[in-house]
């Protein structure tokens, strides 16, 4: 098993800087997701690893060697693309076999490996079909089998689930994780879907403007975001404009409130960032009235306009809680578990 490292990688397209001093170490056998908004550079990082984009600066290290000068077809990377990339002129078996042919493997070896891959993605009975005879999910499973057949050093997944409907997406996501764990292959998964990234990865890297803002376990990224950008991008967030009184206390709408951390440049005006599930509707706290209550299945999101702050915050309650009606007067509090205090 081999890991992959990006060292100070920079890549620009004209005046647009897609990757800026990008550093990332992926351990052997690790499943890493790169998450970020469109244009943040996550796909560029993947394409740099695959050899489809040249570097302006930096190195990509696989198995201790710098692979940056090696052309795409000589790198041993398996890639699954966002759009269905099966060769329309070849059937499933021939598609999976393609990479083995380029490696000049014997017919016996090829046949055995293709059978193994078909079994792995549970498509043995579809071996003779062509791409247009398969569903989107099946096509991506074949693409995964094709990428894995060559025993790549690293598996690169470029939003492979984004063209699929929700149900197929969820089952294929689980299947990708199962296969990755079974083979122990180092994997980089690019997605803009945070639920996907959080649920599938050993670690999640959140990117913005060509840089890694944070890379950590899914739980840490969600519960302990390193920057306000991460806090806002991963999950939902409520913002409370406040005044910093000291390192542990802020004043918000005339109330003195304790905060867990208040590091920053020392600005007095700050924003307290809190997850909706950390807010409570109870008998004390800020007065407000219900704007809307939305049933979301297991939970219900309640939007509340706070009187003194004149802004709407979102609170998550279990669906078993009482139904809130628009106009109902409530109070909202937070149990000193803010995510971040951001200087304004």
């Amino acid at each position: 098993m081999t890991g992959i490292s990006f060292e100070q990688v920079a890549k620009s397209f004209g005046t647009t800087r897609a990757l800026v001093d990008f550093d990332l170490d992926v351990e052997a056998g690790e499943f890493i997701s790169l998450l970020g908004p469109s244009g943040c550079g996550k796909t560029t990082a993947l394409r740099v690893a695959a050899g489809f984009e040249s570097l302006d600066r930096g190195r990509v290290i696989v198995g201790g060697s710098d692979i940056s000068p090696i052309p795409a077809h000589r790198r041993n990377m398996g890639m699954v693309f966002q759009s269905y990339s099966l060769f329309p002129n070849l059937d499933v078996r021939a598609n999976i076999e393609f990479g083995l042919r380029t490696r000049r493997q014997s017919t016996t070896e090829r046949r055995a490996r293709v059978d193994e891959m078909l079994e792995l993605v549970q498509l043995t009975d579809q071996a003779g079909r062509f791409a247009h005879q398969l569903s989107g999910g099946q096509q991506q499973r074949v693409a995964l089998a094709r990428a894995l057949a060559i025993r790549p050093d690293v598996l690169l997944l470029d939003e492979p689930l984004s063209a699929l409907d929700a149900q197929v997406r969820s089952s294929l996501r689980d299947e990708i994780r199962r296969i990755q764990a079974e083979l122990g292959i180092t994997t980089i998964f690019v997605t803009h879907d945070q639920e996907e990234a959080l649920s599938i990865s050993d670690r999640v890297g959140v990117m913005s403007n060509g840089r890694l803002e944070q890379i950590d376990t899914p739980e840490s990224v969600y519960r302990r975001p390193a920057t306000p950008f991460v806090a806002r991008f991963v999950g939902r967030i409520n913002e409370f404009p406040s005044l910093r009184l000291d390192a542990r206390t802020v004043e918000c709408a005339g109330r003195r409130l304790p905060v867990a951390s208040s590091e920053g440049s020392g600005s007095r005006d700050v924003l307290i960032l809190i997850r909706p599930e950390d807010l409570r509707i109870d008998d004390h706290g800020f007065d407000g009235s219900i704007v809307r209550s939305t049933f979301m299945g297991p939970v219900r999101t309640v939007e509340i306009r706070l009187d003194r702050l004149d802004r709407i915050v979102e609170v998550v309650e279990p669906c078993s809680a009482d139904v809130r009606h628009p106009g109902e007067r409530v109070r909202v509090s937070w149990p000193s578990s803010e995510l971040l205090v951001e200087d304004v």
Partner: protein
Amino acid sequence: MTARPVSARSFSRLGKAGILVLAGLFFVLPFAAMTRFALQNVQVIDLGWSTLFDKWSLDVFTNAFGNDFFLDSLVMSTKIAIGTVLLTLLLLVPTAVWVHLKLPRARAFVEFLTVLPYVIPAIGLVAGIIVVKPHVRWFISSDLSLIPFYVVLALPFTYRAIDTGLQSIDLKTLTEAARNLGAGWFRTLFTVIAPNLRSAIIASTFLTIAVVLGEFTIADVLLKRTFPAFMAEYRQSDPRGGYALAVLALGLTTLLFIVLAQLTRPRRRIDSIGTNTPRKT
């Protein structure tokens, strides 16, 4: 949306049918007139409704086929057609793929270049040949020297066919997928791109053959007895026989286009990005 009245729809349908009939007549009438002149052994002055079924004969073909130069010219044109098709595909497919993948901004310019043979008449090329002829006599003396000129003449048709084919597939993803699996450019081109351009390549091939079977000016200037040149020459000694050969060439070209239409008929749905539309499950 409101439905259009029945009379308006009928009128529209009639209008379309009328246009089709007029277009058909525009093509068929001269063809029919030429066929009568060639295959009816009747004085031109006597050709009319009353003689419509008189003295039809295929003798003119027998005579033409018996001419010493008929077979030679046909073989030469066939060789030139094969050479032109091969050179066109070898030059055009990699170039068009390269432009699509690496120089998408240059597409408009390349398109402009490929329509130049429309703008510059064949006689312009001939003038060029006359200028360079003394320097490349060794090349001009070969029968196959017509091939490069025909490649250029066919460009407006062939480039468009290949370009349309490339637009109908997800070229970038297919190429990257092949490269990622270890295929070099050569293998990618021949095992992934070309098979998925089948229709475009067939169209380009037939269009090239049609150009080769119809070109006379350059062949005449370079003193090559191609099939069209032979037809023109034969017409001087036997006008009816010459036109009979023209009918034959026109018929063959029409047949080629019918075959082309059949071979390139889509057999499955292709979506806008050119990948296969997945089956709903």
